């Protein structure tokens, strides 16, 4: 731990510098798509970091984490729809609603283990998803357009894209710091102990259920805040936000980046979302020398056929995900 100039640390610091400079680059180059993409990356990295708290450190594989993105988003959307535009009111409600849902889901799910836990969290997510589909007053399947971003009169102007981006980045860094402090506290050690051997933790006197439930609620609340950010970013909320594929994406980010590591989810989110944008271009570049241009373009449309086996390779050969790869150490 005394060595600071490791490859992993250099990559993480480099990544943070790049993230901090995105708005500067965009203001010079004028590429607003890049701004949209990176705002999305930062927000989803925050959601993945919250998932890492329970999945990576706590061993609780929630296959329904995107639900809190949806609940946070719907809190913003519904309040805006009903004429409450103040962010000072919207955001605490978004966080509170997500925390409350996490409390209910956690209290019922944490009795089960392993695949049963995965599937019961999945079932709750499906319930809330279909509840969203049935919300006729708020757009049902088609979703709800948010006409005004949250108003923080006199403090922040969220309609300014750079201001909004830096707020998201600040909250992401704050989340990573909070999770780091949590897992290194007594509370975090109990949760990690319970991941390794729950029965032994109970035998030495820890009411692990309460600790695990608290972790579950904290993760849900942070993800709810990320959902509030996402709704403000897209100015739109629909049940698709909490579709199971989104929960799957969050798990992929955590596992790909490196479970139970502070910056793993960030690395995973950046890798996954940037790869999704870049893979077609990379395939085109590689194919151009061998094929005529229309064929190369056609081939590049099949990029998931490369992404899929890539996941498999990371699983097979990089224990601890990208973070483990960068650390060059085999953990386990």
């Amino acid at each position: 731990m005394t060595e600071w100039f490791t490859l992993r640390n250099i990559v993480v610091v480099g990544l943070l510098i790049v993230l901090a400079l995105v708005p500067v680059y965009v203001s010079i180059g004028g590429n607003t798509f890049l701004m949209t993409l990176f705002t999305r990356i930062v927000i989803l990295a925050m959601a993945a970091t919250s998932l890492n708290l329970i999945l990576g450190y706590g061993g609780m594989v929630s296959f329904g984490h995107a639900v809190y993105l949806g609940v946070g988003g719907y809190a913003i959307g519904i309040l805006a729809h009903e004429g409450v535009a103040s962010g000072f009111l919207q955001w605490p409600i978004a966080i509170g609603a997500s925390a409350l849902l996490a409390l209910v889901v956690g209290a019922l799910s944490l009795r089960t283990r392993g695949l049963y836990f995965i599937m019961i969290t999945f079932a709750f997510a499906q319930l809330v998803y279909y509840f969203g589909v049935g919300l006729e007053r708020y757009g049902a399947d088609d979703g709800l357009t948010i006409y005004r971003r949250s108003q923080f009169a006199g403090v922040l102007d969220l309609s300014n894209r750079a201001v909004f981006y830096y707020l998201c980045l600040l909250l992401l860094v704050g989340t990573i710091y909070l999770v780091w402090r949590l897992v290194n506290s007594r509370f975090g050690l109990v949760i990690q102990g319970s991941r390794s051997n729950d029965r032994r933790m109970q035998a030495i006197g820890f009411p692990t259920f309460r600790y695990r439930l608290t972790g579950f609620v904290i993760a849900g609340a942070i993800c709810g805040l990320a959902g509030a950010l996402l709704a403000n970013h897209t100015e739109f909320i629909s049940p698709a936000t909490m579709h199971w594929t989104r929960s799957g994406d969050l798990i992929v980010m955590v596992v790909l980046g490196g479970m139970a590591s502070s910056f793993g989810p960030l690395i995973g989110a950046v890798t996954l979302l940037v790869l999704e944008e870049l893979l077609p271009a990379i395939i085109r570049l590689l194919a151009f020398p061998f094929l005529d241009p229309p064929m190369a373009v056609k081939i590049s449309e099949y990029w998931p056929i490369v992404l899929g086996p890539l996941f498999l390779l990371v699983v097979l050969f990089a224990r601890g995900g990208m973070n483990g790869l960068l650390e060059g150490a085999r953990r386990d």
Partner: protein
Amino acid sequence: MLLVLEQCLNGLQFGLLLFLLAAGLTLVFGIMDLVNLAHGSLYMVGAYFAATFTAWTGSFVAGAVLALGAALIVGMAVEVIAMRRLYGRDHLDQVLGTFGLILFFNELVRIVWGPAGLSLPLPAWLSAWIEILPGLDYPTYRIAIIVTALAVALLLYLLVMRTRLGMLIRAGASNREMTGALGVNISLLYTLVFGLGAALAALAGLMQAPIQTVQIGMGENILFLAFVVIIIGGIGSIRGAFIAAIMVGLIDTLGRAFLPDLMGLIMSSRGASQVAPALSSMLIYVLMMIVLVVRPAGLFPVSIK
């Protein structure tokens, strides 16, 4: 009353299809301890194979038999190339790895068969209706599905409980090392079990194909229903999977058929038509949650090895 009976038969037929899918899933999980999300891809591949081979040979039965053989080979190849390396790994690693395989299979199918769906026409002798009760006509094909699936369930039971191969499978599930030490080729056995699961998934896919369109992603939604089935039944229990599959099939089908009318009794018909589809999609998840809250290891828990 006849309508209720007809919907019950539809539910039974859907439940039996789910059982074919869930049986492979629960065998692979119970014996190899592998969470296989790509099981739905084999269901999809089975349907595509059947559509292609039927068009080639001009016979539905010949197409189905060829498709089953092809799916068996694909399943064993997938096991040898990828799955075997995932045994003994963390379940999350398996989820990510097999999720990657789903992406791979979906794109592969898109490249080979194109993005548009296929259809699998039924021969005349299967597309008829027969009168099973006075005043109740029922499609021959759905009866054929029920009969085939019941026969396969019986064969599977006999295979696992009454044959030497089944004995080896059960032995491999309860103690891998000891069975290997007695001179049984465990890795060949696992390849066979995986191939068997793939063929069962393909059978479910190809039997569902004439009812729905053959399309990319058709395996994913039904895969989750199959997971719900094995969770309710208790992971690794084929008997549990059978009972849970029929429960889920009946509840899902009856919910979709009758909830809109039931809701109409307590609210406006327009409101009911909005809420009922969402509510009927929720039903089986509610069922699973109730089962898990009451019995955290499913209805028929398999004792820990």
